[in-house]
């Protein structure tokens, strides 16, 4: 008999990704992903000064503020008519800010979120060596502070004790790397987490020799970590858990807006030369990206209005009582089909487009794993793509930072037009992010954001097609319905950012009167 599994950790954080899965005989029959938080930020952007969009939209998400700052700034560049006038210094500094953020995010995602499904931290309790890092973790655990290390669902741990201990050491090193990436970003971004240095026309931060060298030594430490630790660890997991190549295949369609501008002469972001390129892939065949083919269905979302229209024409009208709806997420589709976004999409698009460094490293990895490119459409494929992309970005940044020219301009002048429209397309660490603006009387008339997790965790569309994550869950098996760790792993592989924006501390089960002071 079919059994229903509900994964909905809503007790700790409000506004969440709720997942409902129907399992029959170990096979997932049906999966529904539901965004449980209304995020109609678009509504109050209306009537504001267009320049506020950059500061407001980066507050939308605690994980991708940088990507929203980038997308809104590209959006304003295009609406203000300066997208082809960004000086090279401004272009490069923007790339360094976004790239540092991607490195930070990818490393954190693998080690601090995903790895604990595969690495048994309790192995460190028996550690008897002299490594100070492992001893500090051992001390941490012996004080009963297992909390950050224990996933709720039991995993199947397959590494031996010594390998587990070594991987825990890498876990702590990864925290150091994240710290370095954060410092790299702060060199160009100034104040974090809400950066003010990315602005329409370019950046406000000027390059100096000190900043360039400060960036480069940190970057080189991270590059060494990626080459000698991160990628080998992902490959080790892929070899030991090779059955996970059969879990979590998505729709098989991949979409990338591309990122890291290599020139700014072309004002059209869908055609501009980017390091990771724009494109769509269906049946492992590459097509060029046409942003006019994007439409958002609201058939199964708690919104009113015309269905399946382009984001630039959409209004945001919530209706929590709508029948047949089960999510606050809309369903973005491309040519009416279901597309996945994220590092895997970027790698597959750039691979098929023949981007040389991408092709080289993907081929080398596949040959080491004795696997065909098609296995990348899987849970493990997503982790592998993230690791390889980290290397590609880090290596490229080492060249880009040396292109900076101290003393030369970083920003072009602009004026806010009376009326205009704009579009900003770039990539957050977890996938394609697009912003659209319409300006009237120098004020925002309409603003829309289509964020990566909306693509990936979208509900069924007007044709009844399940979203990418729903399909990935439906392509999975569950050994034990009381311990559905496979499903949690599939969801994690997408690096979802749905709980965006709410993070209240719940302080329950205690007599608050004792601590109340006001």
């Amino acid at each position, binding site marked *: 008999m079919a059994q229903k599994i509900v*994964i909905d*950790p809503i*007790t*700790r*954080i*409000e506004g969440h*990704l709720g997942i409902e899965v129907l399992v029959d005989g170990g096979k997932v029959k049906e999966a529904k992903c539901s965004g449980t938080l*209304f*995020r*109609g930020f678009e509504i*109050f952007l209306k009537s504001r000064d267009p320049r506020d969009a950059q500061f407001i939209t980066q*507050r*939308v*998400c*605690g*994980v991708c*503020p940088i990507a929203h700052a980038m997308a809104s700034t590209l959006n304003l560049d295009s609406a203000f008519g300066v997208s082809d006038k960004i000086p090279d210094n401004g272009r490069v500094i923007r790339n360094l800010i976004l790239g540092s953020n991607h490195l*930070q*995010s990818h490393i954190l995602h693998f080690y*601090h*979120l995903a790895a604990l499904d595969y690495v048994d931290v309790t192995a460190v309790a028996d550690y008897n060596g002299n490594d100070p*890092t492992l001893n*500090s973790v051992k001390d941490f655990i012996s004080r009963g*502070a297992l*909390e*950050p290390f*224990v*996933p*709720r669902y039991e995993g199947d741990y397959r590494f031996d004790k010594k390998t587990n201990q070594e991987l825990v050491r890498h876990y*702590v090193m990864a*925290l*150091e790397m994240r*710290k370095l990436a*954060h410092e790299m970003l702060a060199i160009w971004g100034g104040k*974090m*987490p*809400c950066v003010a240095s990315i602005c329409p026309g370019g950046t406000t931060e000027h390059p100096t020799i000190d900043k360039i060298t400060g960036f480069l030594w940190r970057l080189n430490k991270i590059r060494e970590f990626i080459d000698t630790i991160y990628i080998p660890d992902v490959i080790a997991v892929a070899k030991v858990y090779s059955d996970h190549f059969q879990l979590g295949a998505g729709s098989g369609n991949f979409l990338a807006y591309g990122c890291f501008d290599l020139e700014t002469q072309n004002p059209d972001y869908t055609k501009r030369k980017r390091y990771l390129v724009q494109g769509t892939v269906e049946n492992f065949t590459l097509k060029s990206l046409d942003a006019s083919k994007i439409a958002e269905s609201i058939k199964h979302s708690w919104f009113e209005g015309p269905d399946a229209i382009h984001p630039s024409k959409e209004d945001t009208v919530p209706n929590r009582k709508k029948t047949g709806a089960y999510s606050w997420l809309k369903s973005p589709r491309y040519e009416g089909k279901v597309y996945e976004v994220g590092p895997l999409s970027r790698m597959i698009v750039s691979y098929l487009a023949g981007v040389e460094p991408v092709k080289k490293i993907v081929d080398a990895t596949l040959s080491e794993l004795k696997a065909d490119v098609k296995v990348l459409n899987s849970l493990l494929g997503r982790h592998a793509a993230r690791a390889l992309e980290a290397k590609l970005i880090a290596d490229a940044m080492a060249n880009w930072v040396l292109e900076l020219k101290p003393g030369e301009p970083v920003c072009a002048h602009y004026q806010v037009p009376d009326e205009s429209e704009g579009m900003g397309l770039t990539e957050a660490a977890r996938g394609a992010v697009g912003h659209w603006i319409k300006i009237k009387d120098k004020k925002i008339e309409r603003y829309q954001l289509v964020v990566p997790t909306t693509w990936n965790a979208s509900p069924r569309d007007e044709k009844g097609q399940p979203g990418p994550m729903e399909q990935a869950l439906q392509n999975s098996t569950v050994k034990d319905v009381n311990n559905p760790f496979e499903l*949690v792993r599939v*969801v*994690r592989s997408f*690096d*979802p*950012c*749905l*709980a*965006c*924006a*709410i*993070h*209240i*501390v*719940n*302080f*329950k089960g*205690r007599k*608050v009167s004792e*601590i*109340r*002071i*006001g």
Partner: protein
Amino acid sequence: MGKGKKIAVVGVGNILLGDEGLGVRAVERLKEKPLPASIQVFDAGTSIHQLLPAFEGFDKMVIIDAVKAGQEPGAIYRFTLEELESDKGKDIGFMLSLHELDVPRAIALERLVSKLPEEIVFIGMEPEKISEGMELSGTVSKKMDQLLSAIEKEFG
């Protein structure tokens, strides 16, 4: 005041969701006041986990946040990190996304590589209305002065 004890006052929350952003609104108000050089004020937005390394070298952290503890809206709370952790006990749930790397967990992780202050105090207020909008609710606005006094008590 403070006798040179280095204190970081950190507002967290999302200003796009009304009272959810009360911590950030409180530190915005605090920045307008004359403060001793030993006290630094930070707006961490919703990304405190990204900012934690910046608190190395401080003697004390005071985190200002919206806190749901079941009292009437506007109620002010004070508790330490240790109290928060002991309350949660084993009912910690699990992480599906990086957003769930909540504050106590993020601090516990960061302490493996950074020397964060020993003393970490939360000053919180019960929200009235959490929904899209950049304004605080009437109740929370009225209690802001009291919240600031509660924060300033930590400086002594």
